[in-house]
Structures are given as structure tokens and as C-alpha cells.
């Protein structure tokens, strides 16, 4: 059995990256490197108002004074920021008004990715904002949504058409001084999605963005801003892929969510960036700052993530629970296979009264992968009667991988309750034996156990994503025995 299971481990941990194709599309590049001129170039290219250019320059000047953070449990050679192309856009011919005008190459790229921008999606009821190499290609369903007063468009469009909203909320959750990669993003972000749900509106469909890094040597710096006004509701999905390349590519995104009184935002991510090959060459460096603020009372923000890709993941979707009775949730499955490294977790800042947060994190390590959960739960003095429950489990497949847990728990009042639990173990031989005894082969048994292990999180994903996420998990992990 030992040798058979080893074979299975080999088969699955050596599974090739399925999304590694390059699309031949004419791309408009900025010169390599980073300086104030590049930022002015990006800003001019996007025909931005002055306040945004000033925001970018302020961020850039601040970024220059910062040092790259070294505290995370990840190791990588130093990033040369002068060797990166900070702006790459599919060459624009003219303004696109219908799907037929979109480059057919681009459309087939999205088809390969399994997202179609056409009628099929209408049936599925999903509005997609697809971002390829930093520029949003086409937003579907905008018209349907605009009838409800919902604004869902690319960030650049939002800058053009809703500068006041952008000005009001940009940097209000993640200020440009926040951290090294957030500052960098603030200076050079090229596009992303913008979403505004007006008062009392329940967004009838799931909104979705697809990110894809296509050109070589480029970084993707997208910026997403979601604002749910009083009593609004939105469920948002984000997916990511990148083609296979030998060099490492940088992805430093910022996502900001604002939930006003009684609003609810659900944010789901399936991240499947290219993880590098079996020897750990290439892959995406994913340094992402995601943060939501529950500004008003009774608001709710929920993060769900399935992290299977990237050679490095550095990501802590967080909630600031400012309003009374607000709720923060974090559900995560993170996989580190081959030479992948993941340092991910969340921060729950309890500031308002009766605030509640739940953290469920499931880490899976295989091959030479290293997976760390890093989380902070802080109950401030004024957050009376607050409640947190955290559970972070790690599953180890193979003896060369690592699983680490860094929970920080700070409690500053007497009426709150904070609970934290964690376990680390391999797949139990008893469970395997039980399945095998009943005629289920090793491979399927492991698939069953891993999926069962992650079920709690997968259940939180919107339908469209749950299927994809389960498939991804099976591809990267099924069939491993410690």
C-alpha cells in the first residue's frame, strides 16, 4: 500500500498546471521599471483626474521610505521592482460597445478559463468584470444592474464616471500608508473592479471578476472597491489565473470593502495563479491586502477564500468591526504543494459593542509546501459582549512539508469571549482503512477525506465557485498519504 500511495502522491503532486497558456494579443506596455514618470504615464494613459494622480504620487513617495516586510514565514529572492512592467494593456482599438467587438483571441482565452462573457453567463445569472493584465475588458450585465442603481464597472470607468464615489472611498479602508505592498499598489494600480450598491438594494445576481496575468514580466496591480450602502446586500466572486512562465511574476492587489448600516457583503475568492513548476521555478508572488470595514451597526462582511495557486501567498483578508452588532467572517482553504509557500490568515478588529467574528481556516500542505495560518483577534476595551470563535486546522500530506499556526489573541475587556482551537495531523490511517474496507480505493478515499476536511469552507462558496473549488482541490491534492 505504501508504494501505491506514493505513486498516487507523485501523480497528484506532480499534476501540471492546467491554465498555463499564453494568449497572443497585442499588448500595450509601459517601459520597465518604476519612477514618478511611469506613474504619470499610467495616470495619463488612463486619463485620470488630478486627485488620483496626486494619490498615486503620495503613495509612491511614501513607498520609497518603506522597507519590504520580512516577518512572514516565506522565503523568496529579493524582488527587483525596476525589472517589472507596471502597465500592460491589451491594445485598445476603439471603445467597445458590444461583445462582438472584443478580440476573439481574448474571448477564447476566457473560454479556456471556463468563463464565457456571452449568453451562457446570462443564464447562470453572473455579471462578470474580466480583468486581463490590469485592464478590465468588458463588463457584462451593467445595464441590468444600472436599472437597480447598482454600479458595477471597471475601476477606470468608475474613475471617469463616478469620481466622487472613488474619491470618497478610495484608501478609506486600506490607506496608502498601510503596508509595503498596499503602498506600491496605491501608486501603480492599473485597474480593477468597482461596485456600489445603493441604499436598500439587494443585488439580485452574483457579481464576479476574473483576473488573469498574460504578458511576461508584468505585475498585476488591481484595485477593487466595494461599497454597500445602508441595508444593501451583495455577493462578490473573484477568480485568478496566470499562464505558465519561468520567471516569477508579482501580483499585489488591494481590495477594500465598506459596509454601511445593515449592509452585508460576501466576498469569495478562488485563487489559482500559476504556482511554479515541481522544482519551484516560476509562479506568482501574490502579496494582497484585503480589508473590509463594517462601518454601520448590524453590518456584516464575510470572506471566503480557496487558495490553491501562487508560489507565494501573503494575504490576510480582514474585518474592522466598527459598528455595534457587526459581524465578520473568514473561511479559508489554503493549499501549499510542491514548493509553494502560503502565509495567510485574517485580522478581526473588534471595536463596536456586541460584535461577532468567526474564523475557520483549513490548511493543507503537501510536497515541500509550507502553509502558515497567521491571525489576529483583538477585542478592544469598548467592544463589550463581543464574541470570537476561531478554528484553524492543518493537514499534512508527506514528510517534507510544514504547517504552522501563528494566532495572536488580545482581549481587553471582561465581558467578551474568545475561543481558539487548532489541530495539526495527517490523514488518519483509521479513516483510510475504514474507506478501503468498504471497497473504496485509496485515491477516492483520500479525495473523500480531503473534501470532507474542507467542506466547512467549501459550503460557504457560491454555487458557481463551489464546483470549481472542489475540482481544484481534487486536482492538487487527492490521493496523498502521509
Amino acid at each position, binding site marked *: 500500500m505504501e508504494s501505491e500511495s506514493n505513486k498516487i502522491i507523485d501523480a497528484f503532486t506532480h499534476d501540471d498546471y492546467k491554465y498555463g497558456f499564453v494568449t497572443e494579443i497585442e499588448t500595450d506596455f509601459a517601459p520597465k521599471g518604476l519612477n514618478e514618470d511611469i506613474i504619470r504615464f499610467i495616470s495619463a494613459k488612463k486619463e485620470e483626474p488630478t486627485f488620483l494622480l496626486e494619490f498615486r504620487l503620495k503613495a509612491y513617495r511614501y513607498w520609497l521610505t518603506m522597507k519590504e516586510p520580512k516577518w512572514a514565514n516565506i522565503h523568496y529572492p529579493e524582488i527587483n521592482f525596476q525589472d517589472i512592467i507596471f502597465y500592460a494593456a491589451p491594445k485598445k482599438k476603439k471603445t467597445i460597445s458590444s461583445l462582438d467587438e472584443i478580440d476573439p483571441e481574448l474571448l477564447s482565452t476566457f473560454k479556456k478559463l471556463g468563463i464565457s462573457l456571452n449568453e451562457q453567463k446570462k443564464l447562470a445569472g453572473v455579471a462578470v468584470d474580466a480583468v486581463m493584465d490590469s485592464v478590465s475588458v468588458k463588463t457584462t450585465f451593467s445595464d441590468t444592474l444600472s436599472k437597480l442603481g447598482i454600479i458595477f464597472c471597471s475601476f477606470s470607468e468608475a474613475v471617469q464616471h463616478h469620481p466622487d464615489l472613488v474619491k470618497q472611498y478610495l484608501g478609506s479602508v486600506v490607506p496608502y500608508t498601510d503596508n509595503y505592498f498596499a503602498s506600491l499598489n496605491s501608486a501603480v494600480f492599473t485597474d480593477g473592479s468597482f461596485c456600489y450598491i445603493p441604499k436598500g438594494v439587494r443585488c439580485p445576481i452574483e457579481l464576479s471578476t476574473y483576473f488573469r496575468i498574460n504578458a511576461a514580466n508584468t505585475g498585476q496591480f488591481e484595485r477593487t472597491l466595494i461599497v454597500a450602502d445602508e441595508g444593501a446586500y451583495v455577493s462578490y466572486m473573484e477568480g485568478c489565473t496566470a499562464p505558465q512562465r519561468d520567471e516569477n511574476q508579482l501580483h499585489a492587489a488591494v481590495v477594500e470593502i465598506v459596509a454601511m448600516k445593515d449592509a452585508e457583503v460576501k466576498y469569495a475568492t478562488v485563487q489559482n495563479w500559476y504556482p511554479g513548476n515541481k522544482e519551484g521555478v516560476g509562479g506568482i508572488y501574490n502579496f494582497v491586502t484585503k480589508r473590509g470595514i463594517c462601518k454601520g451597526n448590524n453590518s456584516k462582511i464575510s470572506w471566503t477564500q480557496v487558495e490553491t495557486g501562487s508560489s507565494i501567498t501573503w494575504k490576510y483578508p480582514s474585518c474592522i468591526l466598527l459598528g455595534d452588532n457587526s459581524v465578520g467572517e473568514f473561511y479559508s482553504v489554503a493549499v501549499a504543494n510542491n514548493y509553494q509557500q502560503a502565509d495567510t490568515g485574517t485580522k478581526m478588529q473588534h471595536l463596536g459593542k456586541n460584535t461577532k467574528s468567526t474564523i475557520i481556516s483549513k490548511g493543507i500542505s503537501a510536497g515541500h509546501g509550507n502553509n502558515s495560518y497567521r491571525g489576529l483577534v483583538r477585542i478592544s476595551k469598548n467592544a463589550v459582549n463581543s464574541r470570537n470563535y476561531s478554528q484553524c486546522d492543518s493537514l499534512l500530506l508527506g514528510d517534507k512539508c510544514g504547517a504552522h499556526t501563528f494566532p495572536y489573541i488580545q482581549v*481587553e475587556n471582561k465581558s467578551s469571549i474568545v*475561543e*481558539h482551537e487548532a489541530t*495539526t*495531523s495527517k490523514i488518519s490511517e483509521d479513516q483510510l482503512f475504514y474507506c478501503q474496507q468498504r471497497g473504496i480505493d485509496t485515491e477516492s478515499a483520500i479525495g473523500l477525506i480531503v473534501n470532507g476536511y474542507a467542506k466547512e469552507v467549501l459550503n460557504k462558496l457560491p454555487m458557481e465557485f463551489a464546483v470549481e473549488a472542489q475540482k481544484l482541490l481534487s486536482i492538487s491534492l487527492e490521493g496523498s498519504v*502521509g
Partner: protein
Amino acid sequence: MKEMQTDINEIISHEGMIGLFEENRGHLFQHDTEYLSRLRNTAIAKFSELGFPTPKLEEWKNTDLKASLSKKYGYSLKPSPVKDPRKVFHCNIPHLDTALIAQLNGWYISKDVPLMELGNGIILGSLAEAFLKYPSIIEKYYGHFADVSSDGLTALNTAFAQDGIFIYVPDHVSSPKAIQIVNVIHHPENIFLQPRNLIILGKNSKLSLVHCDDSYNHQAGFANTVTEVFIGENAHLDHFKLQNLNNDSTLISSAWFNLEKEATLKSHYITFNGGLLRNNIRVLFNARGGNADIRGLYLMDRKQHVDNHVFVDHAQPECTSYEHFKGILDENASAVFNGHVLVRKNAQKTNSYQGNKNILLTDTAKVNSKPFLEIYADDVKCSHGSATGQLDPEAMFYLRQRGISEENARMLLLYAFANEVVNTIGIDPLRYRIEDMVKKRLQGELQICEQCVLHCNTPEQPVEFDIDLSKL
């Protein structure tokens, strides 16, 4: 040689300590073997590189020594004169027969001889004397476990180490009596002291060790203690650390436990009082099959601060570690728990648990808990749990419903919470005494005793509450 400076009285600083070391080289090195001199030189070099820890270091994030270090302290390079040792140390725990050894301001106090050799081969006494008398034992064990390269305070202690307690239990010997170390801080002025202890248990040996840190008067003290413990193959150490210091004192207590094949360590850290307390507990499994069981209880109030740092290094397979720390925090007290379990690549079949539970009684009390797991082996079972909250209102209601006053109900629940740690103490008289102290502490009656805490005159009865338990 320059005239020896016996006492300084100034703010303890990084440069100040290096200066003091350089000025007193002659005195510090006077009896050193080559091995010891080498250790001191490495250590002072490391200290000058690392300095005193600051909250910028991850390990010291929540404990700031700034206030403690900004006081003026005297530093004594000679033992304090003892007028009547019998008067200072006549501590006893009723019905607990211990061999008592005492330290005053970190220096070993000898009643008769500095180093006793008991009939069964156990050697007990002053480390300074052991440096001279047993250089080969010292060379084999001293300075091997306390790693100066990562910790400035351990480096500082190693550079200045002059005296402390030395215990040697030979192979196959079980100490019939518990050994009790009492370290009293008593000085007319504020004092900075650095006791250094070395405890060695040979193969198949057994020892119970009660280690008390007490302050005598209300002067501020800063103690930077380092204790190295070697537990040989299949040996067993039952270790108790009791801390009851005044609110102006600072205690950094670093203990480095090294466990050989199938060695077992059982340790209790009980903290009643103290200004700023930091316990660095480091356990290294140096061979397979070791077992470490470390429990802690801290009952803090006023502005007291306690920080328990437990690092367990599973360097070898088939070892088991268990940590459980519980605390009750009242008024403005703050507590830190930082557990770190490292399971190295080949440490398969490791079984490890970390637990931390806290009760906050006020909105001004604070807890920082960081149970940290770092795992590189796959066939392991590791878990941790941390919970912070208040007394269960349902349990309170249950008691109140049965006519128990709020104060008594609260006391009973707090006592039950604390007792989970205390009731695992295997030596009955000691457990009774600690149970009694917990009860007194919770009722606010336990003060910093005029003398050693273990000296108070309470009956050695199991604790009883003034409530009718039959009502329950």
C-alpha cells in the same frame, strides 16, 4: 589591577553593563577555568550585540522592560552580608520534609559548608564552589543548554554569572527528600541581580525540586535568573516554581530544560504576585521518548504583568509535551502567554498540546495569547486551544439559586478554575499549602509576606469554603 568596584547605583543600561564588565574583568575572571573564561567572553560579545530586549522583538512584543530598566539599581559583585541566616530562612511547609537551600540576592547562603555532599552522592550547594571543585562536571554541563546567541538577557547572565545553586544527582539515585530553593531578594537599596543555577539529574535518577522566588521587603529588585537543567536518560524531575514578589520587582526567570532519552519533566509555575514577571521556559527533547508536562497558574491584580513564554523543541521523535496555563486577572493586570511548539523534520510520532485559559474580572485587565505551532513532520498530533472570557453566568446562576452568596459563588468558581492546575501537584503537603495560598490570594488576603511566603502559619488542611456544599 584596578580597584574592584563593589557597588554601583545607577540606571542599568546596555553600555553601563558592558562598562561594568570591563572594569571588573579581574574580579569576574579570577577563579575561572579556561572554559568559563571563554564562555564569559562569548557571552559579553553577544550581549553587546543584542542588548536588552525591546518590544520591537517579536518575542518581547507585549512585555516592555523600559520602566523596569529606567529605575536605579545597585549591582553587587560580592555576596551581601548575612547577619543571621537562621532568622531570614526558617521557611517550612508543614509535613513537607525538604532539604532547604537558600539564596540571598542571588548568592548562596551557607550555613555550614558551601557545598554539601549527601550520603547518597547528591551534591548540593553553591555554584561558585562547584566551579572550583568540579571543573569536569561544569565543563560537561554548564553553559551547554542556555543559548546566549538568541537572548540578550541570558548572554548578560552568562557573562556575569558568579553564584547560584548547584545540584547534582548521580545516576540511579532518587532523592528521598524534596529539595527546596528559596531565593530571597532583600537589600536596603534597589538591586539588580543575576543568579545562575545548574541542576543535573543522572541516568534513572529522580528529584523533586521546589523553587521559590520571594522578595523580602518592598525595595525594587531586578532579577535576571538563568537555570540550566539536565535530565538524564529515564530520569524524572518534579519541578515547582513559586513566585510571590512585591509589586516593584522585575523577575526574568529563564529555565533551559534538556531532556535525554525517555526523561520526564513535570513542572508547575505558580505566580501569585510580582511587578513584572517573565518566565522563559525552554524545553529541548534531545533524544527520543521524552515527556514534558508544564502547567502554570497566574493570579494577578493591580498593575502586575506576567509573561509566560514556553518554547518546546521537539528535535527528536516520539516525545510528548503538554502545556496548560491558566490565569485570573483583576484590576489593571495584564498577562501574556506565548507558547511555541517546534516539531522538527524527523520528530515523527510527536504528540503535543498547548492550552491557555484566562478569566478577566475587569475591563482594564488585558490578555495577549499566542499559541504558536511550527510543524515540519507529518506523523504528528498537535493541537492548541486558547480561551478568554469571564465566569460562566449559568454556573453563577446555579449557585445563586441554591442560596450561595454572589461573593462565595464567585470565589468557588474561581477557585475551581485555578484548582485544575493546582490539583495535579503530586506532593500532598505542598498542594495543600498552594491550595490555601490560592484561596487567600483570591480573597485578597495574601500579601507579600514580611518574610518568605512559605513561612505563613496556616493549617495543612484541604481547603474548605464557608458554604454549605450539601446544598449543591
